[in-house]
């Protein structure tokens, strides 16, 4: 590692910390309905939206109605994306004349983009028309992210309100997060990216002569607009198959830096919004700190693994699968950030990461995508772990556990357990299924523990709504399209529904004023406790599986064998 590498990492975190309160405070204004400067730009559009969908923005609902609206909205989104893929050949904006998509691939992709996973079992430029990419995927990139934010905002209201059953209005939260947060940021970001050389057009694919005289097809399309939201909305679904390793998606080191920052921007800022809405920014910074520590720990392990001597290749750093334009530090920082944040976009092949760096990437996802995590989703997932931590450790101060004045009782614990169980269920059972059936094993391109890691990574990615892949696994098969699709659904709604139930139940409770006898959730001790619970409860479940994958691979590599 060079000094420049280190300076870049420090700059990255400094900017992240600096932007968190700025954007966080803005989002606080957006979601509490206070006045903010974007209202003059998009206020008319917000009012128009409510008129069209016939919603009274001030009419608040209980958690059941909130959840019902959310599920109906997502269901409609899914059906739409599913259908336009099945009939894309008959639909406009298809200059490459791409054929209709198979039903299981369409199912997988529709679920994937609706659930903010953006797992891509297909190759973008050779499978989907511009119409599907824009009307289907880009729209879902926005609204799936907005859905995540809406769930989080409802949860915050549940925590901060008292003795009410009202959690807010799903349509209002959805509209506001799209119009005031995701859209302006994406427009700004897309412009900057175009300036850096990301393509944005409706041209047909171009055929060019290479220097060697061969001809090559260069894919075109409205990439910048989709890339902006794929990064900001922790979506990660690339416009091109190579994702952010593709020069048209990620042309320069500067675009690379910004695209990485964009991944964490909103999830990080939401911790500040959280703190502000529950009445103590310290609570928000506590969560931010816990997330940052986990992120830096993972990053350090990955960097160490990548830079340290590889006994197989001698003493060269591992460059296989990495863009020489970005180098190791930027590839590892990206791989850590994208898995921590449920983004899933890649600028290097995770399949080629050293076993330990691959382990970190996988563990980031398995822990439940809570290290910043998906927009909204990461923080509400983190709150689930906070609830567990408060419940386990809170008893040790001699009071029945409470978080921010709200008692944590049987119902909350039950829902929190379901939210943790749902993704674990997918990762473990589906991976087990895939590793004993021909349908699962035939897709493998690699032998030994690495092949197993590929399967484990795929289901983790689906369950965690991450969307990145270890590649090396041919996932565009009936078996994988279906199981991964179902996994994404369970991983998404198996968490959202319990979270909203917790929000609804907590809103009804009284608030106990804090005193010296209160278990504090805003100090270093709590950060330490939270991290321990995340690692022990969230991580130990996967330890046996991980030891048969990346851990054993790392140990074997050290003895000179590679897969």
């Amino acid at each position: 590692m060079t000094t420049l590498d280190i300076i870049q990492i420090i700059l990255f975190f400094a900017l992240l910390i600096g932007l968190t309160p700025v954007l966080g405070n803005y989002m606080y204004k957006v979601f509490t309905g206070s006045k903010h400067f974007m209202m003059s730009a998009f206020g008319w559009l917000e009012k128009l939206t409510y008129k069209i969908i016939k919603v009274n923005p001030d009419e608040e609902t209980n958690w059941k109605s909130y959840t019902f609206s959310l599920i109906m909205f997502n269901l409609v989104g899914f059906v739409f994306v599913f259908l336009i893929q099945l009939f894309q050949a008959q639909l406009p904006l298809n200059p490459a004349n791409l054929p209709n998509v198979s039903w299981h691939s369409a199912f997988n992709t529709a679920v994937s983009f609706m659930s903010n996973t953006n797992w891509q079992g297909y190759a973008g430029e050779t499978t989907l028309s511009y119409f599907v990419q824009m009307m289907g995927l880009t729209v879902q990139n926005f609204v799936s992210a907005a859905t995540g934010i809406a769930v989080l905002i409802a949860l915050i209201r549940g925590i901060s309100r008292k003795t009410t059953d009202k959690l807010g209005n799903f349509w209002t939260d959805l509209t506001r997060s799209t119009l005031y947060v995701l859209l302006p940021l994406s427009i700004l970001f897309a412009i900057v990216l175009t300036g850096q050389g990301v393509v944005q057009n409706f041209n047909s694919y171009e055929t060019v002569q290479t220097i060697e005289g061969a001809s090559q097809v260069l894919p075109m399309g409205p990439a910048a607009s989709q890339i902006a939201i794929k990064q900001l909305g922790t979506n990660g679904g690339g416009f091109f198959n190579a994702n952010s390793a593709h020069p048209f998606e990620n042309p320069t080191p500067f675009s690379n830096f910004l695209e990485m920052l964009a991944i964490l921007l909103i999830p990080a800022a939401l911790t500040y919004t959280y703190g502000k809405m529950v009445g103590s920014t310290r609570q928000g910074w506590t969560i931010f700190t816990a997330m940052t520590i986990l992120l830096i720990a993972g990053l350090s392990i990955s960097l160490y693994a990548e830079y340290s001597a590889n006994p197989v290749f001698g003493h060269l750093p591992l460059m296989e699968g990495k863009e020489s334009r970005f180098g190791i530090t930027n590839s590892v920082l990206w791989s850590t950030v994208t898995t921590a944040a449920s983004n899933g976009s890649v600028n290097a092949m995770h399949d080629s990461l050293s076993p330990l760096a691959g382990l970190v990437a996988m563990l980031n996802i398995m822990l439940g995508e809570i290290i910043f995590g998906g927009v909204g989703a990461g923080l509400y997932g983190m709150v689930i772990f906070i609830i567990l931590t408060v419940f386990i450790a809170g008893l040790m101060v001699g009071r029945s556990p409470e978080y921010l004045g709200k008692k944590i009782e049987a119902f909350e614990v039950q829902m929190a357990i379901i939210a943790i169980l749902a993704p674990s269920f997918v990762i473990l059972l589906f991976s087990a299924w895939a590793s004993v059936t021909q349908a699962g094993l035939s897709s493998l391109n690699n032998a030994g523990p690495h092949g197993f890691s590929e399967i484990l990574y795929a289901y983790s990615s689906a369950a965690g709504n991450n969307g990145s892949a270890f590649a090396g696994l041919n996932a565009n098969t009936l078996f994988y399209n279906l199981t991964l699709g179902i996994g994404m659904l369970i991983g998404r709604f198996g968490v959202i529904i319990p979270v909203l139930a917790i929000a609804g139940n907590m809103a009804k409770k009284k608030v106990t004023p804090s005193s010296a006898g209160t278990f504090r959730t805003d100090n270093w001790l709590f950060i330490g406790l939270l991290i321990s619970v995340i690692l022990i409860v969230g991580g130990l479940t996967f330890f046996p599986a991980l030891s048969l994958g990346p851990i054993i691979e790392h140990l074997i590599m050290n003895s000179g064998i590679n897969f």
Partner: protein
Amino acid sequence: MSTKQNTGLFNKKLFFQAAKDSIAKLNPALLSKNPVIFIVAIGSVLTTIIVFTGIFTGSFSSFNLQIAIWLWFTVLFANFSEAIAEGRGKAQADSLRKNRTQTKARKLSGTVEISILATDLKKGDIVICETGDIIPSDGEVIEGIASVDEAAITGESAPVIRESGGDRSAVTGGTKVLSDRILIRITTEPGNTFIDRMIALVEGAKRQKTPNEIALSILLSGLSIIFLLAVVTLPAFFGYSLSASGLPMSQNLTIPVLIALLVCLIPTTIGGLLSAIGISGMDRLIQRNVIATSGRAVEAAGDVDVLLLDKTGTITLGNRMATDFIPSEGITVEELADAAQLSSLSDETPEGRSIVILAKEKFNIRGREVHQLNATFIPFTAQTRMSGVDYKSEDGKPHQIRKGSSQAIQSFILNNNGFYPQKIQETVTELARQGATPLVVAEDNRILGVIHLKDIVKGGIKQRFAELRKMGIRTVMITGDNPLTAAAIAAEAGVDDFMAEATPEDKLRRIREEQAKGHLVGMIGDGTNDAPALAQADIGIAMNSGTQAAREAGNMVDLDSNPTKLIEVVEVGKQLLMTRGALTTFSIANDVAKYFAIIPAIAITLYSGKNGIGPLSALNIMHLGSPQSAILSAVIFNAIIIILLVPLALKGVRYRPVSANTALIRNLLIFGLGGIIAPFIGIKLIDILINL
């Protein structure tokens, strides 16, 4: 109830009874109430079946047998912890039962007295009790006054007075009338008397899981399911790895090994000890002579953050003490002290005695014999509101000394054609303002001066309140005194707030206000007028000496009728919750070490070279002897730790009045960090022993 009896863990009789009970508790219907232990039991059965089929198919494995044995021990140890906790309660219940003899009741039917069995008494019946009678059931004295021996329930041998009307009218079935005759109206249905309920409670027969216990059980079951997932999917992953390393499928994990792994990972320690912790929490209250009507109440006690405390008895000694003599104009302080002492020589009230002592200490005036002075003592009555002496001086002239409230003395002096000086009135007002009680002394027709009587705050109570404050508990003093007096005492005692001139309605309103702000309120009371407040409070402790109404309204009864009990009850509640949290943390933290024992052991052959030792053996950081001994050691540790922690579960973790943060750090170091380290040491030691 005798609380002094040996209920320790090492009481032989208890121990053997508990050992017997833990086998009886293998009944699946009982086991299924505890999901974590139920899983272990199923595992034990499966492993046992495999051992026996092994015998018949000729593939007997002594390793499997040892696993099976230790799994059974895990279940038995968990049962034992519950049995021994229940056993201690049963011992207490038995001693209670002895007092509930089959007494006959003298029921009054109209004006005729008939003899029926106590168990046939209905609510509303009226019975007669005379000297030597056992009171047949719970009730209220409606006529008469009697001294009653309540040792049966309180363990206190000194008799108490029970009389109709007022705040001391409740009597308890099973107690004995020592003198006089009373008429009692029965207030409970048969089988539901106080003693019946106490027996049921201490036996844990009607024990229901408390809210926090239910939540914790859900967490433990949830964790068990998560680990179950991790274990059932392992053979598939393992099979993949076997084929990838070119090993035969026959080497895949066996069911006993999987069960061993599962049992080590699920939180068996806390799962096994959970009910023992709950029962013993109740038990600790009973040892303090407090009966809670539900486990829920004990838990809520830990959450209480506002305490309403009666001034008298809790904060002050309940008696005022003389601290100063302030003479009237023209009178020396010695004269006043002398007269005051003389008037108090036969006054047996604490105030009177304190005057005698003050006079002796301050002016060295010795006590004299009243009858030598030919003096007659005039006791205090509600009508005169003063006391004093009539005596003849050496010249034979009769004199009257009186002490009492300024009003009473004023009318006394005016009757004697005396003069009540303005200066005295000012002193009286001033003393009242300071929170003291002024007692004016007069002789015949002149005022001698004022005795300064002061409320004495209990020693150490200020520190106690400071401790409570550290724990985040606010104290509110309740008193009938005027605001000035109340404020002065509140400041001296160091309470956070006070309510002066408090009526029962004020108390109720205050509790509601605090609850509306989200606080949990605890209070202790005795009178009928306390009943609404006791019912409203989150923790209402009724004094046993109080009325039946108060006892019904509260959710705890303090048999000692000691107002400071409230603080102890809060401590017991906190200790109960802490013990649960500490052992849960310990149990979960244990998993780290168990992984490092079992995973390398089961995966040692994977991707191995010729020597048969695969790369995962690098995780065997404890350097355990062999794969089999590693697994066995983990299982043995898992079983033994339950039995080792039984004393802690019964006694509760050490409780100290410190802030939440300090308590947390302390418990985390012991049970969190300790929970990670202990099994590393324990498993290694067991492994060494096995491989000897």
